[in-house]
């Protein structure tokens, strides 16, 4: 058997694939964060909690209403997005004119409230949710068995990431979004309702967290703490990619997933630290992040 650095090659191919799968969650979550930060200058600490809400909504749709996975893939992000819209209109918009720390504190508080409410309602051991029948089972790739659902998640994540990047960087809608945040007064003078654009941008960023929640529900234990477990890593991804850089968030998300995957083979105990080690090195070399524009 071919060995690479003392480990069998098939194992490493497997890890590469698993790293890409985990990376796709990092990419999707950091994408939403990057949009909200890049366009609104809000550090949304509630992002992980909204990811959790997305997973619970998916479960709730099935449990209470009998609505399955495929409709939930659309409904849950819309519901989470609508909830985000409500948050933005009632709370978050008041922090735009304040120091950035107020938005951070507010969203951190919201995350704790959301987690507390769900823990109170559903307990800490979580609820169970299975993959749709058509996506259950495994594929034999020769070097490993790939669960079909994980393959689907990677494909979905790549499509979503590319689509979002395209909309923001390459379309007139994206240009409008970017202009609304760079110079709101001027854009408003052209007859654009800037507050509405900003609110909808926040809702869109949050609905991405909801969508990641739907994709995560069949993979992980759906419990109130599931967002908190991921959010620290995701923030590191955003920082490494360059705060607010959409493309940076996507590439870094996948990249770090892969690095973490290999760490899990060579030195498992460091697998949660490695992300932060990379962050420290990147910040030393490039303080604005890999793809960030220097302030």
């Amino acid at each position, binding site marked *: 058997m071919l060995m690479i650095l003392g480990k069998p090659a098939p194992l490493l191919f497997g890890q590469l694939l698993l790293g890409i799968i985990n990376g796709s969650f990092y990419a999707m979550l950091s994408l939403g964060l990057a949009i909200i930060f890049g366009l609104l200058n809000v550090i949304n600490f509630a992002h992980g909690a909204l990811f959790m809400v997305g997973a619970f909504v998916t479960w709730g749709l099935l449990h209470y209403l009998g609505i399955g996975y495929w409709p939930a893939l659309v409904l849950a992000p819309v519901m989470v997005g609508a909830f985000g819209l409500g948050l933005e209109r009632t709370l978050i918009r008041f922090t735009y004119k304040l120091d950035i720390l107020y938005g951070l504190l507010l969203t951190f508080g919201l995350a704790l409230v959301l987690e507390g409410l769900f823990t109170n309602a559903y*307990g800490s*051991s979580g609820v169970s949710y299975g993959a749709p029948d058509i996506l259950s089972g495994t594929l034999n790739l020769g070097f490993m068995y790939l669960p079909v659902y994980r393959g689907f998640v990677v494909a979905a994540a790549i499509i979503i990431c590319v689509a979002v990047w395209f909309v923001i960087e390459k379309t007139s809608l994206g240009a409008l979004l970017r202009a609304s945040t760079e110079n709101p007064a001027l854009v408003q003078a052209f007859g654009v309702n800037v507050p509405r654009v900003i609110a909808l941008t926040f809702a869109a960023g949050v609905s991405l967290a909801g969508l990641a929640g739907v994709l995560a529900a069949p*993979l992980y*234990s759906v419990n109130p703490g599931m967002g908190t477990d991921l959010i620290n890593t995701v923030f590191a991804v955003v920082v490494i990619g360059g705060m607010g850089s959409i493309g940076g968030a996507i590439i870094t998300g996948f990249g770090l997933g892969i690095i973490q995957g290999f760490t899990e083979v060579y030195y*498992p105990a460091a697998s949660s630290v490695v992300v932060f080690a990379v962050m420290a090195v990147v910040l030393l070399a490039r303080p604005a992040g890999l793809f960030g524009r220097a302030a």
Partner: protein
Amino acid sequence: MDLSRRNLLGGAAAGVAAASLPGTRARAASAKKLKIAVVSDFSGPYRDIGGPTSVACVEQAIADFGAKQKGYDVEVIRGDHQENPGVGTALARRFYDQGADLVIDVPNSAIGIAIEGVAHDKNRAYINTNSASSDITGKFCNAQTVHWTYDTYMLSHSTGGAIVKSGGKKWFFITADYAFGHLLHEQTAAVVKQMGGQVLGNINYPFPTTTDFSSYLIQAQASGADVLGLANAGKDTVNSIKQAHQFGLNKKMHIAGLLIFLNDVHGMGLEIAQGLTLTESFYWNLNDRTRAFMKRVKPRTPDNYPSMGQAGSYSGTLHFLKAVDAMNNMKDVKNGAAVVAQMKKMPTDDDAYGKNYIREDGRFMCPAYLFRVKSPSESKEPWDYYDLLATTPAKEAFMPMAAEGCPLVKA
């Protein structure tokens, strides 16, 4: 200031500690007042195995004891340790200072052991019903502490031993990288080797930041082992098992969850949990007495059935109250060592655990039950999850005192 003064007094001598709380004694003149503090996880990952359901079980014990009829006024207070030893010990200290006669429950071994020290300093009774570490009655044992329910030795011998006996000889472990995980892994690995099995590998993964176990599962699969030993707990166990199914590991390996509670099975769902073997010392549907207990306690906790730790808080509270009543001297209740000595003198008897006893080192001696999780079609009613496979008698379920290194026993 007050804290340190109490500390000194509490550590000095039992009688002095009692005398330092004249207020409580004065109030006790009319009704015999007792205060029980449930220190548990009310908001984090172990909420379902402790938390509000533990409080419900403690309240049930007070009702079953007939506290009112016997002239006792028992107050139950609660505190959320937030999975933080600093918070947990501060809570226990404050509760004891406020006159708590007993601290009970306490999931998480790190906090469970830390509070042992507080109980000793304050000389008050402490019943740990929800931590796993066998060191609680080993090197950390003291005269104020009783360890109820289960420990890592019992889990590793009951679950590990049974699986090796049934032919699972080659093991691979996935271990939560902290004291509890290490102890559980080491003790189970020792059992496996002792019984002629082999340990092919172990991975310590970072706790509590890991949600994806696929990498470790693939490595386990590649090792050629036929048993996957999960030395973890709570959502980590649920995530590992759920993901093991996604990779089809359950078809090639036997999955041994070394610490799984009824509430975890409920959270996983039978579709995924079916076929697991696990050990608990209590199950509500075990016999007529446990069912009778469940029927009484259910109105207090309708959505979360008690698992062994919570039932342990029932059993422990009831026995504490019986001991206090037998002492018939409210002054001595503030002397934790005297209360625990009385508890050790009397055999225990309650609906949840049946007839048992407490060993000299503070170990509550009860049988360990090996269960198999039912399939969805075998489950006839809500929370009907287990089939009993084997029973290990108390004397074999726990570590012999000679091997433990408990200073109390040597003396």
